[in-house]
């Protein structure tokens, strides 16, 4: 446990002192700020601020474009870069279980990603301080959904990062996987029968748009996001374990 905490702290610290992570954070804030301003300045949102959370966390560009791309970028340094610079082997031979390594890196990424969402929350607070009468159930619901989605995308990014030392492949593979998770169910959502039913039960933006952003927490959506995150963490662990056997 002590080794796990030490590794987690090391990972969080290394992100906190990484210029790359802060550039990523800055770009994220910039793009989100622009989306926020564009949404806020539309007549519809000005007339009813309740429409802002669904726009940002549900059907807007944040979910469809930005959210799948950023978590894998944060994850590339977790395994792919360690592999590239040769520090992964010493880590795997250290007296710490492989799964603890995976979990420590993942939780560190999650904690750092909360900073990403902290900036978005700051935008809503800014609005509140300037007299915006926000529906906090919708804001916090939407943010909960978005945070859980980003945790899922971090898990897929981590898995993609564990596959090779190639940073582009790690980030690109993770992002591609995330886009698949978003777009494939959307394509088959209206299909009849089992295919349509499966697609609807995997449709992340629907969870965000029709559930979380409307101020409704759905147990299935929570299980879906946490379950898939756990699956990708397990697959990452399997990948690390198999490296010992098939380098």
């Amino acid at each position, binding site marked *: 446990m002590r080794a796990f905490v030490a590794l987690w702290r090391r990972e969080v610290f290394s992100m906190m002192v990484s*210029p790359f*992570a*802060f*550039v990523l*954070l*800055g*770009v994220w*804030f*910039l793009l989100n*700020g*622009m989306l926020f*301003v564009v949404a*806020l*300045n539309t*007549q*519809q*949102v*000005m*007339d*009813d*601020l*309740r*429409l802002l959370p669904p726009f940002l966390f549900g059907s807007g560009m944040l979910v469809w474009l930005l959210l799948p791309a950023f978590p894998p970028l944060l994850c590339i340094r977790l395994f792919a870069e360690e592999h590239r610079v040769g520090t992964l082997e010493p880590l795997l031979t250290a007296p710490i279980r492989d799964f603890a390594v995976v979990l420590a890196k993942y939780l560190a990424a999650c904690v750092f990603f909360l900073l990403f969402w902290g*900036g978005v929350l700051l*935008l809503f607070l*800014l*609005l509140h301080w*300037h*007299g*915006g*009468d926000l*529906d906090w*159930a*919708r804001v*916090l*619901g939407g943010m909960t959904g978005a945070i859980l989605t980003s945790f899922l995308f971090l898990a897929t990014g981590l898995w993609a990062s564990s596959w090779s030392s190639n940073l582009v492949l790690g980030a690109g593979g993770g992002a591609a996987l995330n886009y698949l998770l978003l777009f494939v169910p959307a394509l088959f959502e*209206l299909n009849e029968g089992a295919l349509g*039913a499966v697609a609807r039960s995997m449709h992340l933006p629907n969870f965000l*748009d*029709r*559930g979380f*952003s*409307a*101020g*409704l*927490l*759905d*147990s*299935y959506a929570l*299980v*879906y996001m946490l*379950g*898939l995150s756990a*699956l990708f963490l*397990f*697959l990452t662990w*399997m990948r690390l374990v*198999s490296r010992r*056997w*098939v380098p």
Partner: protein
Amino acid sequence: MGAMSRRLRLGLLTMFAAACAITFTVLLLYTFSRPGLRVRIDLSSTGTAGLSDRTVTALNQLPEDSRLTAFLFPEDDSFRWFNSNVYPQAFDRITSLMEDARVQSGGKLQTLVVDINSPMVAREREINRSARKPGEAIILESGGHRRVITFEDLFQILRANVNDNTPARIQLERVDAALGDAAVALASGTTLKAGIVTGYGQASPTDPNGLLGLSQLLVRDNWEPVEIEGPADADDCDLLIFVDQKQPFLPSDLSAMETWLAEDKAVLVALGPNASPAAAQQWNQLLKDRGTGFEPGLLCEPIRSANGMVEGRSDCAKLELNSERFSGQHPITIPLIEDNRLLLVIGARPVIFQSGTNDFTQERLLRTDPLAWADSQDPNGLVFSYDKNEERGIRSIAVASERWAPGEEGRMGRIVALGSSASLGPGLDFNRDFITSSLQWLGGDERQASGLIGLGERPFRPDRASLARINNMSVYGIPGVTLLIGLWIFWRRKR
């Protein structure tokens, strides 16, 4: 070889473990998607973000094959003028409640949201499958029956004002209540029976050139159409429909019809200009107490053209009715006015008011132009032009009558007298909204305004300085500070 074999075994083991994990996750998701294990927590302070207990209970009573489809198409342009947020707000509310309905229905309800972003093929398929008409927002289907909820049924909207550029806005909404009403109606399984009388020379409800369209419309609106010879066979019907009549009633049917009316049961009678004069006379006697009846003749109007008013053409008998010609006081026509519908009534005879009794109220539903006349048969046939024997003026095309107060068995004695039979036959497509609305009223199911609640709008009207501050902080402030921190970290690490 040994190392290869070991690698292969370990590789297979890894793949097996991964397959097990995926299977476990799928089973976990399947289990948690089961109705009993799925819960939704409403975070809103008012508790109205999801469906009410009444609606959830009603949805849970629906059979397994039930289907709820929402069509989110912004069809009324006036709801988009001046950047109105009617559609964003409405669609936001409908989609979140649809999802809640799916979850809370215990898996019995298959919900589908079709919008302008849906793939075109799937969109067309759903529209065709559900026979969706413009204006219909939600269709609930269960056990071969269906309830249609129009956009106007769901939202009470203050229309845009073009004089001061005020956008349309939603005043109140009743999505939850409307879903609940529809589910209750379908779950109760009470289908009203409509007897279509065919024993007096009327067209058949199975004939594509006859009343098949009407029959399909009845099924769509949760009626069970039954073909009957005459009123004497209509014991278990809730509504009698007469579309034209070529012969007068036989004594037994006349007596049954008198009893039917005395029991205050509902009637839709459409006698066109070609109906038997003796039958029309008989109906005038039957409807005398109700204060309505039929006159002979063919209603004609001059056609407005570039050369002025034109008469003497058969087109004069095609009456184009805009919302100004509908009653603004009656539940049948109010939705048509709100939707700005147009009707085309082809070949109609005048419907008249008779003295009636004080127990019934009458309302003219549809009327002609003030220049209209009832063309009478000339020796050479119809000439479609006004002559001195005829009288110009506003004529009624349809009249509704009902009791002022419910009768002994709580019935309202509702009657719709329509001067056109074609409106229920070949011309049904041009008058579908009117007929649907009439059937709803006759079935005691006119548009309910119950369950209306506010949306809880939260407008934001910042001054220019505040808005500029928010914009600057969002786009420059927060990202700028973050990038500066990154730069500082980079500089420190460099040192």
